[in-house]
């Protein structure tokens, strides 16, 4: 599904394990220029599916932000489909080899390059002059997440065992560059004028010399948070950790708490997030049977039993919310 409807919530799970909740809120803006996409690819015929989670944030103040964020997601996933699912099977009768992380990383960056070229063509053809979008994409490959980004929509990994939160992606903002160089502090970066000024994004004249692709091992019960800066921009790392670790209840409640925390700090921008719980039904049952009381076990314990078909609930979901 690709959606940039005004506001909405959806949740679901995948047969390979893992469940998610997605929320997109217009907040105080006139339009919701954020888009999100949750889908799956099957690299090996009749093999396990590869969940794809993605968020794009049409850049504020520029024209057609919503159009561009939708196109960025659409083109990225079409390119992934081609390189992961179609090309390996073209004129081949045998079963394709499973994809390695390295191959997926290359495919993912190639997809972002194609999306960038397409958006630049789209902007030029329509005479929009200046338009762009951030993007963050995560592919779940067994016990590994492979991710890539352009712009400042981040991907966080909450390690449930170590109870640590790690920001996997690097922001391509002026503030992000200065922060990494140690020229400003994280606190300064959150309030820096260049925190939203992007050097690289989908639709930019050039892409970073060092490709922004990452992979990270996941463990049962870990969380992934993909979001726009409307969710994470106002929150300190400690506050995000606290929300992911202690919100309690279910994924949806955690997502609500994340949205609310930003607004409580005066966030006015569109807010979109995908919260992914990494695990299987078996893990959940084992955890429940063992009477575990860890935070994450509590969090997922209240979630409905997984259903192969994701459900849609609440908000003005619009036609784009159908999965």
């Amino acid at each position, binding site marked *: 599904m690709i959606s940039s409807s005004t506001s909405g919530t959806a949740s679901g799970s995948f047969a390979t394990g893992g469940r998610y909740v997605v929320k997109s809120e217009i907040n105080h803006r006139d339009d919701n220029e954020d888009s999100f996409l949750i889908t799956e690819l099957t690299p090996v015929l009749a093999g396990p599916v590869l969940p794809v989670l993605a968020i794009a944030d049409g850049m504020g103040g520029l024209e057609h932000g919503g159009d561009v964020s939708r196109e960025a997601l659409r083109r990225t996933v079409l390119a992934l489909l081609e390189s992961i699912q179609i090309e390996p099977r073209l004129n081949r009768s045998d079963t394709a080899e499973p994809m390695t992380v390295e191959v997926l990383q290359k495919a993912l960056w190639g997809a972002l390059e194609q999306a960038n070229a397409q958006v630049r063509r789209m902007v030029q053809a329509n005479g929009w002059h200046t338009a762009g979008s951030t993007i963050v994409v995560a592919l779940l490959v067994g016990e590994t997440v492979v991710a890539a980004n352009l712009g400042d929509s981040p991907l966080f990994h909450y390690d449930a065992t170590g109870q640590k939160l790690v920001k996997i992606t690097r922001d391509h903002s002026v503030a992000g560059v200065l922060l990494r*160089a140690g020229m400003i502090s994280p606190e300064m970066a959150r309030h820096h004028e260049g925190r939203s000024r992007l050097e690289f994004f989908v639709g930019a004249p050039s892409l970073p010399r060092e490709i922004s692709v990452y992979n990270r091992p996941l463990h049962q019960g870990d969380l992934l948070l993909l979001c726009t800066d409307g969710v994470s921009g106002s929150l300190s790392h400690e506050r995000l950790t606290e929300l992911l670790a202690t919100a309690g209840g279910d994924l949806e409640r955690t997502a609500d708490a994340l949205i609310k925390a930003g607004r409580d700090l005066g966030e006015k921008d569109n807010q979109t997030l995908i919260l992914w719980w990494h695990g299987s039904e078996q893990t959940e049952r084992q955890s429940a049977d063992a009477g575990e009381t860890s935070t994450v076990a509590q969090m997922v314990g209240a979630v409905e039993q997984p259903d192969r078909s994701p459900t849609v609930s609440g908000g003005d979901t619009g036609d784009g919310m159908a999965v």
Partner: protein
Amino acid sequence: MEGGSIPLEIGPVHEVELQRFLGGGGFGLMWKVADRASGRLYALKVIRNVRPGSISEARVRNEVGVAIHSEFVVPAIGLQEWNPTTFLILFEYFDARPLDDLLLEGALGSADKHRILLEVLQGVSDAHRHNVVHRDLKPANVLVCRDGRSRLIDFGISKFKDVNVTGTGDLIGTYPYMAPETFLRGSKYADARSDIYSLGHFFYELAMGQHFWIRRGWRELSDLVHYLSAVPAPTEGIDLSDFSCDFYPGTAAIVRRMVKIAPEERYESVDDILVELGHIPELPPALPDLGLRSPVLIVESGSNRGARTVLGLAGGGCRVMGRFDIAGEDNTISRKHLEFSRQGETYLVRDLASRNGTWLRGVRLEPDGPPAPLRHGDRIKVGDVFLRFAFMRDV
């Protein structure tokens, strides 16, 4: 669409014929048009998809709102709101090419570059005298006209009413030309010295044929950050060890002072650079009866526009002025904002630690600092309001 006509209501122009599409820039489509009635040529910028209340709209209005009287600035004639999301801006037309294209072609000789540099410096000096900081100075924003004159364009993000243009705190400008303090501290710290830093890169590019970043193979901000993080830290934004300039030999020291990392180590005004290059800028003409009559302050913007106040000061006297003397309802002016004084025949002004500052010739006066001498014709910005200081016969 070429050959078609569109109705306009901008100044004396009521209908124009679209003659030629000149190109689409980062911020609008530009057409060469002719006034149906007079046949006079203009440039018409069409800006679409402007969201009401957005930064883009503020930029559009700003571009017309900035009126700089200079032969080196392309003047905007007026603005028309075609519909809530489409704006038209009418400019004087000049048969011209952007400087970045000419540099790319290597089409300029030493004499051309000499002239272009001087004219750009004079244009920026004129803007600063009007308390307008351009904030995006680069070759693409200089038109080299067939009449032999260079003119500055794109004042859409200039610091005129910065609150509107950077409403969401967006950092603005073009990275390779942007002063370090703008990166580190933000656009609101950009003043005339930030433009001088950009002009230093501009000077270097004219002299060396390529921007410093290009010569170094830099593509990203992190390249600059890496350069700035060296130990010992560089004091200039450009390594000038191999600098040479055929149209202004021996000027490495001037460029060096223009691109100092610390703004307080740069030239304070573009006029100072012109003087060092051997060019004495024209000063506003002083009237022959200077000293016989008192100067006046003319309010040039805001709700009290047109109001005049005579500064009747005796030698050694001073006068404190604030919101109620200048524009009663404007909260951007402090109650006690600035102080005028007279020493002999020289009038001076100083800021009284006002909330939004006092600007003179593009530089913010030090809060509660020493008084700065005033020249006939100077523009002073207090809060969001412009004042003109002038000696007049008819008061």
